[in-house]
């Protein structure tokens, strides 16, 4: 115990020093006179934001495009997760109270476990590949534009939500299911009356949380050609259009705050 209490801080210290060195972390250079002057000069170039009506109209359109990518991407991910989650939950496929008295033979059981493993593996695959890699793949397949962004968000987040949803399903209390079963309910009936009502609010909460993440990721995906504000940020930075950049950053701030607020509001109202 004594050794451990010393070892943990020492280990963390070594990790931090190693990282400090490896990342060439240089707060003195950043906050020293030179660095400060440089950052200040850059900040000055950002002001004032470009608020010409023409640009504002375009920014509004790009903001809506980013919103659309995050919205459709989240819907797609919920669809993907819902399609897979009930195969990826042990207690609905092969284990637990529903299968204690099971007339089916060994082959059926093995097939069920196989189904479960396949669904889990698919969810893992979807989640493991970062959304930006998915986006690059879909840009290959369907060309530039917001659509590959939607697909990328949908698949990656589908994997994330599928995992979270499966945890929710596996955590539900078994008594109501057992009671339904004892009353003679068939498995679909147990599912619709015992499982779904328990898990739907949680599903909804997780989906709304992920929407908040997705609006940020939709911006990142713009970088690989998925349109919206992210793409324009990249263009503005590459072309040294600092005033336009500030306008875009303000738009991002508004979009992200709006979605955070909407999601919190809906969670309050719907749950």
């Amino acid at each position, binding site marked *: 115990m004594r050794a451990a209490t010393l070892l943990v801080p020492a280990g963390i210290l070594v*990790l*931090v020093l*190693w*990282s*400090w060195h*490896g*990342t*060439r*972390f*240089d707060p003195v*250079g*950043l906050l020293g006179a030179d*660095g400060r002057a*440089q*950052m200040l000069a*850059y900040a000055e170039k950002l002001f004032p934001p470009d608020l010409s009506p023409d640009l504002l109209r375009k920014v509004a359109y790009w903001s*809506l*495009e980013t*919103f*659309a*990518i995050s*919205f*459709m991407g989240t*819907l797609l991910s919920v669809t993907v997760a819902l399609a897979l989650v009930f195969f990826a939950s042990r207690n609905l496929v092969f284990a637990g109270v529903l299968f204690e008295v099971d007339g089916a033979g060994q082959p059926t059981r093995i097939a069920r476990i196989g189904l479960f493993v396949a669904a889990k593996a698919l969810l893992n695959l979807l989640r*493991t*590949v*970062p959304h*930006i*890699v998915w986006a*690059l*793949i879909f840009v*290959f*397949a*369907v*060309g530039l*534009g*917001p*659509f590959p*962004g*939607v*697909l990328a968000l949908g698949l990656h987040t589908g994997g994330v939500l599928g995992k979270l949803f499966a945890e929710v399903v596996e955590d539900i209390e078994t008594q109501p299911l057992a009671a339904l079963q004892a009353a003679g309910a068939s498995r679909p009936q147990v599912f619709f009356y015992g499982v779904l009502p328990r898990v739907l609010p949680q599903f909804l909460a997780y989906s709304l949380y992920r929407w908040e993440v997705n609006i*940020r*990721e939709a*911006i*990142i995906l713009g*970088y*690989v050609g998925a349109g919206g504000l*992210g793409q324009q*940020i*990249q263009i503005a*930075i590459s072309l040294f259009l600092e005033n336009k950049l500030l306008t875009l*950053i303000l738009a*991002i*701030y508004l979009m*992200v*705050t709006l979605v*955070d607020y909407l999601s919190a509001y809906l969670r309050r*109202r*719907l749950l």
Partner: protein
Amino acid sequence: MPLPKPFEAALPSSDHSRFLFPILFGICFAAAFVGSWQLAQIQPGLLFEAEGRRNMGRFITGMFPPDLSLNFLRFLVVPFFETIQISVMGTVLAIAIGFPLSLLGTASLAHTGMLNDLEIAGSPGRRLARTLPYVLARAVMSVFRCIPEFVWAFMFVRAVGLGPFPGVLAIGVSYGGMLGKVYSEILENLEVQPSEALQATGASRWKILVYGMLPQALPQLVSYTLYRWECAVRASAILGFIGAGGLGQQIELSMRMFNFHEVVTLVLILFLLVAAVDFLSARARKAIV
């Protein structure tokens, strides 16, 4: 199904908003769906077109076999460790930024509750002096976290050049805003009795914070920080795409060169790294809480 009378009485009164909300929600949802479908240019047909299929086929056949040659793997050692280093240093910086901001941005420390009521009572000047830093800290945290780390990274690459350092700064600033927000929520929701007891003994504000609040909050603070570190590992891999070092930079290069068998290897390595970090951090969290 009509409810028996006593139950009906127990339900919230059915004012207008109870009926209106589902309808309004339905309309808004439908409008958002139709509008987004068009704006996002959703064309499922594209997925089944010959050219798209050919490209996908090329991609998938190009992925196999994954490039596991020693030459390539040796080449990845530095970016691999760089990704870890960026995530660690980014999290450390995020704590350094987020923790002080969270203290300023905690209402019960700054301007409300029993810690402040007596001092502020009847003095608008003092109230303002206490509320202003609180509002400012909240605003700074909100700006830091609502601008995605990716945009920060872009700007820091401009400011300090390519390499892992801008990645650290980007994660530090945006995660600093997130940590600050969550830290202040944790501090806000603590039990007040210990602080009250300390105040009754005449302890200063600092002492109340150090002896009354932090010991209570520490497990949650550490647990959330560890969770953020997990996110930082993923983020640092993504930031590489815009030249902030690490594995992401390599994924981008391999992708642009159409070396898909390298991409598979990189994604596998990233998967193992993330899984290892998740495991470590889950173990640590269990040990703390």
